């Protein structure tokens, strides 16, 4: 689960504080179905989800998700980047673009082939794990003869092969304050012995504690013992870089350093590539891992070298450079409208669009007047021209117009109404994409403003980002609110500040936060709508709150708690779809976009997009 800001590498909700929320079991098999939103699980070569306003643009720029038959080995791929990875240490990485690199250099127990969005498949594990003890014990066997790469930063490295103890240590080191892992406390909350380990590391922050719930009966077996049957969630989480093996004897000396572990600058990798050089803010170089056995997992690794070049602050010129050059792909910037236009009109074959599995919405603070009145909220949503909002991000290629909160590709999307959204008279306020002033005014009248517009004390506050497109979106929202008679005080600040000082701080939150949204961690309804709309989020971390509308509806809270425990995939999707509509009925925010992830590449590159994170998969991409 990630707030929109995760894409921008800034802040993530206080996951340690909400350790009580764990993913419940989703069924015994690893092929939980998802609704017709995506072709997930199958081996289709391109993805084009169904759904009216969604598919037409996607069909024009389809993403390739399997390696083409004629892919050639060799060459250097240049990755053009604006910023840097959040952490070069795989134990701490929690930034979407960082995963592009980590998926190529690390081997967690489970992994994601590019065309798979349903559930991960074994990567370091030799086979799917066995689950026993009513879903509370998970046993993995790891592949033999996996070796570590030469170390980043030079030196002797580690010559012994990977053993299960290395996986255990890799996870335990995530508890060190010097390895600030962002999801251990959330996804592994039900590990036996976790809280004791957390207490132990507080006492001695230089030594990774032992988590008693992770045991290694022999050097090729690792067993996870849970206190609750949330094995599906744990298996999902073991696909994140945290479980990529790290030998304790090698890393302990780096992990003992405070305030930050220096392992990242001396790391040893087990994937088909390894990080051979890293200069923060400048470049990252990946070379073929000489100690990797080709064919040992599903990653073909075509190119010989990957050179990430950072510092390209101007998105338009960076994208133009990629489109007109050779051997290049993009890293972390989201395409501006202008560059989308350039790519779509002049280089259509070099642009791919994938549903990003995220949404954007304008949060209305339901705890403060005037938006504590549901009719005022409905009026605002009815008046909003969502097409104009989408124009600030690039028009039709930016994504589909949102009508509820679960985006295409996530189970529950169709159940919540699909592209058209929830139907019925009580949802009339969300059924006009370009806004309906008459309807809005009627809701205002219902709220008590007899003229149809706000009268009296109509000053409301809004805090937004201060660079485009966030600032442009805020401008459009402000203009739309003004039409209803509101006097909007807009305060644009730096993106990070918007969250840390205003929108995510319950006491300081303004009336409107226009630049928020949510992006999936996994393809599951819970990952999309639980945290941002659950009343429990507010009390769990009032200074790092991701329930921006501050919605605290007991019915919805109860429904969310119940849906977490549903095992059957169909029933689960139906439940979350229903909750999505119930949330929409409360009108807590204006949903306006279901993003597409846009990726561009040079003409001689054959990019393969990994559907799990919407980024180019370095281990599958090749050069003509």
């Amino acid at each position, binding site marked *: 689960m990630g707030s929109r800001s995760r894409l921008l590498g800034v*802040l*993530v909700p*206080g*996951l*340690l*504080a909400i350790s009580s929320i764990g993913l419940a079991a989703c069924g015994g098999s690893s092929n939980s179905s998802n609704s017709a939103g995506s072709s997930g699980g199958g081996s289709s070569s391109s993805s084009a989800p169904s759904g009216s306003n969604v598919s037409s643009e996607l069909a024009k720029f389809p993403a390739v998700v399997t390696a083409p038959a004629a892919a050639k080995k060799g060459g250097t791929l240049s990755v053009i980047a604006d910023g840097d990875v959040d952490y070069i240490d795989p134990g701490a990485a*929690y930034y979407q673009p960082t995963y592009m690199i980590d998926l190529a250099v690390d081997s967690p127990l489970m992994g994601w082939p590019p065309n798979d969005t349903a559930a991960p498949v074994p990567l370091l594990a030799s086979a799917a794990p066995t689950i026993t003890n009513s879903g509370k014990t998970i046993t993995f066997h790891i592949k033999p003869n996996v070796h570590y790469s030469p170390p980043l930063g030079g030196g002797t490295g580690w010559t012994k092969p990977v053993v299960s103890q290395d996986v255990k240590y890799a996870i335990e080191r995530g508890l060190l304050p010097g390895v*600030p892992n*962002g999801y251990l*406390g959330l996804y592994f909350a039900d590990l036996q012995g976790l809280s004791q380990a957390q207490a132990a590391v507080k006492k001695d922050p230089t030594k990774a504690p032992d988590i008693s719930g992770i045991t290694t009966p022999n050097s090729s077996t690792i067993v996870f013992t849970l206190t609750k049957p949330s094995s599906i969630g744990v298996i999902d989480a073991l696909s994140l870089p945290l479980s990529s093996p790290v030998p304790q004897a090698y890393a302990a000396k780096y992990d003992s350093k405070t305030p930050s572990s220096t392992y990242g600058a001396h790391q040893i990798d087990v994937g088909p590539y390894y990080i051979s050089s890293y200069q923060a803010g400048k470049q990252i170089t990946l070379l073929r891992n000489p100690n990797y056995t080709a064919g040992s997992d599903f990653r073909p690794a075509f190119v010989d070298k990957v050179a990430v070049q950072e*510092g*390209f*602050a*101007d998105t338009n*010129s960076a994208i*133009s*450079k990629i489109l007109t050059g050779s051997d290049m792909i993009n890293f972390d910037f989201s395409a501006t409208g202008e560059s989308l236009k350039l790519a779509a009109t002049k280089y259509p074959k070099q642009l791919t669009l994938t549903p990003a599995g995220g949404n954007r919405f304008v949060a209305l603070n339901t705890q403060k007047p005037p938006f504590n009145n549901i009719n005022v909220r409905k009026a605002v949503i009815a008046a909003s021209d969502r097409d104009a909002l989408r124009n600030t991000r690039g028009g039709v290629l930016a994504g589909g117009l949102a009508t509820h909160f679960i985006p295409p590709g996530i189970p529950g999307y169709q159940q919540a109404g699909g592209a058209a959204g929830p139907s019925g008279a009580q949802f009339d306020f969300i059924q006009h994409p370009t806004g309906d002033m008459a309807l809005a005014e009627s809701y205002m009248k219902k709220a008590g403003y007899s003229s149809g517009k706000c009268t009296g004390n109509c000053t409301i506050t809004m805090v937004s980002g*201060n660079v485009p497109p966030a600032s442009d979106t805020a401008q459009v929202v402000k203009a739309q609110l003004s039409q209803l008679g509101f006097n909007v005080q807009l305060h644009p*600040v*730096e993106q*990070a*500040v918007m969250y*840390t*000082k205003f929108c995510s701080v319950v006491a300081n939150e303004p009336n409107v936060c226009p630049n928020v949204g949510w992006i999936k961690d996994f393809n599951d309804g819970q990952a999309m709508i639980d945290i941002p709309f659950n009343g429990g989020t507010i009390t769990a*971390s009032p*200074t*790092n709150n991701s329930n921006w509308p501050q919605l605290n509806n007991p019915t919805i809270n109860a429904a969310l708690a119940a849906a977490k425990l549903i095992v059957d995939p169909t029933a689960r999707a139906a439940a979350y779809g229903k909750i999505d509509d119930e949330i929409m009925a409360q009108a807590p925010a204006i949903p306006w976009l279901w993003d597409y992830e846009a990726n561009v590449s040079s003409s001689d590159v054959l990019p393969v997009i990994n559907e799990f994170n919407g980024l180019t998969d370095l281990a599958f991409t090749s050069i003509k």
Partner: protein
Amino acid sequence: MGRYIIRRILWGIAMLFIVSAVVFLIFYVLPSADPAVLRAGRNAGPQQIAEIRHSLGLDKPIYAQYVTYMGQVFLHFNFGFSYQYNVPVRQLIFSRLPATVWLVTGAVIIWLGIGLSVGIISAIRRRSLIDRASMTGSLALISAPVFWLGLVSLYLFADDIGVWKIFPGQGSYAAASTFPQKFASMILPWLVLAAATSAVYARYMRASMIDTMSEDYIRTARAKGLPERTVIRRHAVRSAITPIVTLVGLDVGTLLAGNAILTETVFNIPGVGRLLYNAINVSDLTTIQGITLFGAFFIVFFNLVVDIGYAYLDPRVRYS
């Protein structure tokens, strides 16, 4: 002379303290991001933030923080740690200084070269076409906003987006690795930054020359039969240039202190000005203080050099 120098130096140091205190105060009351939260990073609970506040000394009273800070600066040359970039401030500033020095040095050479020569020629050939044209032209350059000039120059001459693709464009300094590449990437920024300033200097030089040339000793020199060239070069220009020296000192000082931000923004040059602007946006207090101190130091230093030079040349000044 010695006493004058000592007085000026002491006053310079006092100014550094005053300026840093004022800045400390301004940003202490700014309602922007909490530096402790920035430092704490992603998963901080309120306890952690409080701990970090304490470890960073942010819960001490403001004058205590100020004293600690100034002590570190003057005794250990340690400007603290940037909450935003996670590197020592000194390292951060020094990593950005080269870009600004590149920008300012080249621009100074150009604007002095062009400005002074245009000013001298216009003064010599007063009321001629050259004079009127250059004075009107320089007025036009002064009237154009420097950021707009930058954008227009990119539009016309940048090698990636320009109408005539001649010079490296926006962001080329950051991408440059060799000296010739860096030099080429700076040509447009130099021209843009120097444009308005050379106009200013041309006008000043012209006014200064006109005043000097009406002095009696020039008439005497001419009467002595010296060739006009020598009169101008050895007597007029020498004397007319002295007030310009004051200007250069002030201008270079303020540019190094971060006033080149407009040019740095338009051309995406990672210099001190841009760093200051970003730091202000996220309330990265230590970086702001560090840059301000550096900047104040440059301004004070250059002012000092200029004042002392002036006093050396003109004894009357020493006794004011």
